[in-house]
């Protein structure tokens, strides 16, 4: 226990007596963590953009106006049995008519034609949403069976298939890019931390050798540097988190305008705070400790 307290004392002494070096190390770690958080924010926004595009996509199945309720229910149950299907919205004839009128309320000619017909010419509609855009094709193909040919008048997917495929391609590419960028960032972060710690240890290599020569064990020499890595990680994490929160507070209102949803980033950070801080702290601390132990190997052989 005494040795542990001494190690903490040496760590604190080192931090304050090498203040400029400690300060620069913390600054570099903060910049690195800010870069990681920028990537996190970009990922959240990319995901949001992709999912909001995907939300716009659905398949509408238009039934003939004389299709029986029983048959329509059968189709609904059949479609609902696919695990890929996320949501089915059924609109009966009256609802479809109401929606049609609402849609064309500024077009008196169309509304007049409808009046002239005297009765509702529109059939019920079923709107299907799948979990993934790539699943739409499967659902529409599943509906292309002779049994339903007589009751299904048309499906919208055929018209929008190309657009959906294109969106699917774009979202796939964006996701791939985000994944690659994350790996690149992880590699850059590794080298930044590794070299920062190595430079710190290198600047103190003579002291490390002296400590060994006056009888310090390897853990007595390593200990303070590990405690320093812990302290630097906590300080840089605290400051970078504070700066990220300020940044989010500033940009969230602008993002709300784009996505018509408020506090997207704040909510994301609040609900993932433990995971985000845990991963960032664990990453920085373990990396700093690993770099520290690696950089000291030569001096500890003295």
């Amino acid at each position, binding site marked *: 226990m005494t040795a542990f307290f001494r190690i903490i004392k040496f760590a604190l002494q*080192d931090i304050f007596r090498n203040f400029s070096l400690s300060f620069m190390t913390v600054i570099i770690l903060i910049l690195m963590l800010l870069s990681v958080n920028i990537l996190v924010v970009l990922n959240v926004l990319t995901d949001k953009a992709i999912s909001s595009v995907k939300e716009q996509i659905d398949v509408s199945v238009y039934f003939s106006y004389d299709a029986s309720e029983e048959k329509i229910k059968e189709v609904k149950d059949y479609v609902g049995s696919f695990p890929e299907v996320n949501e089915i919205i059924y609109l009966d004839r009256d609802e479809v008519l109401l929606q049609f009128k609402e849609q064309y309320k500024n077009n008196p000619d169309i509304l007049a034609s409808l009046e002239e017909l005297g009765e509702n010419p529109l059939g019920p509609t079923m709107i299907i949403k799948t979990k993934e855009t790539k699943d739409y094709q499967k659902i529409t193909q599943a509906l292309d069976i002779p049994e339903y040919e007589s009751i299904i008048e048309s499906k919208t997917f055929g018209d929008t298939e190309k657009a959906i495929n294109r969106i699917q391609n774009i979202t796939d590419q964006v996701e791939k890019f985000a994944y690659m960028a994350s790996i690149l960032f992880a590699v850059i972060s590794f080298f930044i931390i590794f070299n920062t710690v190595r430079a710190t240890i290198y600047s103190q290599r003579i002291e490390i050798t002296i400590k060994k020569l006056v009888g310090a064990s390897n853990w007595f020499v390593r200990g303070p540097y590990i405690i320093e890595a812990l302290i630097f990680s906590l300080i840089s994490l605290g400051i970078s988190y504070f700066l990220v929160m300020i940044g989010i507070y500033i940009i969230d209102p602008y993002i709300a305008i784009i996505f018509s949803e408020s506090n997207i980033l704040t909510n994301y950070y609040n609900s993932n705070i433990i995971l985000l801080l845990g991963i960032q702290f664990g990453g920085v601390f373990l990396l700093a400790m690993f770099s520290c132990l690696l950089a000291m190997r030569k001096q500890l052989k003295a």
Partner: protein
Amino acid sequence: MIKLKNVSKRYSKDSIGLDHVDLHIEAGEFVSVVGQSGTGKTTLIKLLIAEERPTVGEIEIGGWDITKIPYRDIPYLRRQIGVVFQDLKLLPKKTVYENVEFALEVGGTSYHRIKEIVPRLLDIVGLLHKKDKYPYQLSGGEQQRIVIARSLAHRPKILVADEPTGNLDAVNTQEIIEILKKINEFGTTVVLVTHNKDIVNQLRKRVITLHGGKIISDEKTGKYRL
């Protein structure tokens, strides 16, 4: 106390630190090791504190065979041998007091004992009034005295001094030698590596002369002969 049996240290084919050296130093002796630069004096010290290992031969200190000492045991060995390094090896970011204190802290000495020992050691070397200064604020002689105080922290049975007066003027040199003599009088074995002819002649103690990594003379009350 210190036994070297047929010890050689080769760095490469052409670079020999020590060459088949047999040496026996008794407890309480004051031995001067002399020789020109590159004759193996510093190699001898490095072997004694296990900073290096012999290529062949055996080294025994206080009955402990340190020839193949495991790395984990080296700190224990170093806490039993006081070393005054040629290049001082003071911790620049620690005060005079802390430099001496550090040697005790690494050995697990309690703070209570440290508070007793360190002021006493600093008093012996005449630096108690400068205990809060940093090494760079002191003269070369004063820095050398911190090193001596630190080397005595564990009350070692052996004190090895590698050119302790190398960069000092005559007055400081004499002071350091007087301190070493006093330490020897208290029963500590002192191994002094030096170039200084006047010191060796004045001491009138055992003198071992090295040349080309070999012991070429070993006299009970010798003189500097190179």
